[in-house]
């Protein structure tokens, strides 16, 4: 696997270090000579000094043999052009960093599907931390379209002593796993939820917010059965 990183800022530099630690062949392209020298000295990696949106520079970096290119400069227009070049000229996979969350939609409309917007990711994480209570966001998949959520402990949520199949959860939500006394349980429809269980749900952003709201009210399940 050979990868090319365009942009030698903090993200590009650390990406290069991690990829090399994991044994991948990675080349970095950066415009600033001073940064290039520092990165080359510190990592011992191949660093190309030049504009990563120029064909000559990309060829020098070995784009012909590369499997993937990561565009992680601080400017969205540069990252977009790198991805457009990778797709239309070299037909290799690309991944773009998006600096301004507002541009995410534009990247998608222009055919750049694999993007990461760290600003958005961090903002979501902060939002999840704020009002979490015992419901906590763990991990995002598919660039945030699917998320893993932890409810711990389940006591006082109205979940305990109920079968998994009886839990009143939104349709777009699945109980993925249960941790009980440090043991992993793979839940089936007839698994009973216990008081100190920690349960993991796979869902999406909208349903996560809905579940969290219901937990604050003592659980939708509880309310229904009180009536």
């Amino acid at each position, binding site marked *: 696997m050979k990868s090319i990183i365009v942009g030698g800022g903090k993200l590009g530099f650390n990406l290069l270090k991690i990829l090399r630690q994991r044994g991948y062949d990675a080349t970095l392209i950066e415009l600033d000579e001073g940064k290039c020298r520092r990165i080359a000295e510190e990592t011992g990696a191949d660093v190309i000094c030049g504009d990563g949106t120029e064909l000559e520079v990309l060829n020098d970096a070995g784009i012909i043999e590369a499997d993937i290119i990561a565009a992680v400069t601080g400017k969205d227009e540069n990252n977009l052009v790198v991805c457009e070049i990778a797709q239309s000229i070299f037909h290799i996979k690309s991944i773009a960093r998006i600096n301004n969350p*507002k541009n995410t939609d534009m990247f998608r409309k222009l055919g750049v599907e694999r993007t990461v917007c760290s600003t958005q990711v961090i903002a979501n994480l902060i939002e999840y931390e704020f009002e979490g209570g015992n419901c906590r966001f763990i991990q995002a998949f598919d660039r945030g379209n699917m998320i893993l959520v932890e409810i711990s402990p389940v006591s006082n949520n109205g979940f305990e002593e109920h079968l998994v199949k009886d839990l009143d959860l939104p349709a777009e939500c699945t109980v993925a796993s249960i941790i009980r006394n440090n043991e992993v349980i793979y839940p089936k429809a007839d698994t009973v939820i216990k008081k100190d269980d920690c349960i993991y749900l796979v869902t999406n952003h909208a349903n996560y917010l809905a579940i969290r709201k219901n937990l604050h009210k003592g659980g939708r399940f509880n309310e229904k059965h009180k009536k």
Partner: protein
Amino acid sequence: MYVIIVGCGRLGCTLAKELSDADYDVSVIDSDARKLDMLGSGFNGLRVKGIEFDVDILKEAGAEQADCVVCATPDDNINITAALVAKKIFNTPQIVARINEPKKKAIYDSLEIETINPTEISAFILKSRIEENRR
């Protein structure tokens, strides 16, 4: 005929005034308000300050009705991005971009963006002037 000019440098500004004087509907986008001031009080087109390739900014400049978008900033990547947004999001009938770094022509070509290369044109004109003098 409605023309949007992206980038109000010497080229964009001159073109905007020319087109406006010739009774075209013109709007000009630049992220630098001082550049837009270069258009002067005589310019009666629309001035929009903002990120040149931003979808909302282009919309504000009238990209949904525009017959032509000219990308004339001094940054090739901004020109390419703005041209792609005009082409793929607004389906603008005619798009012309200015090439700054002649090496990047191949990139514009592969993305099917029509270009002009002022450096090449100036060099060509200068060369023919020099040749004229030699005769």
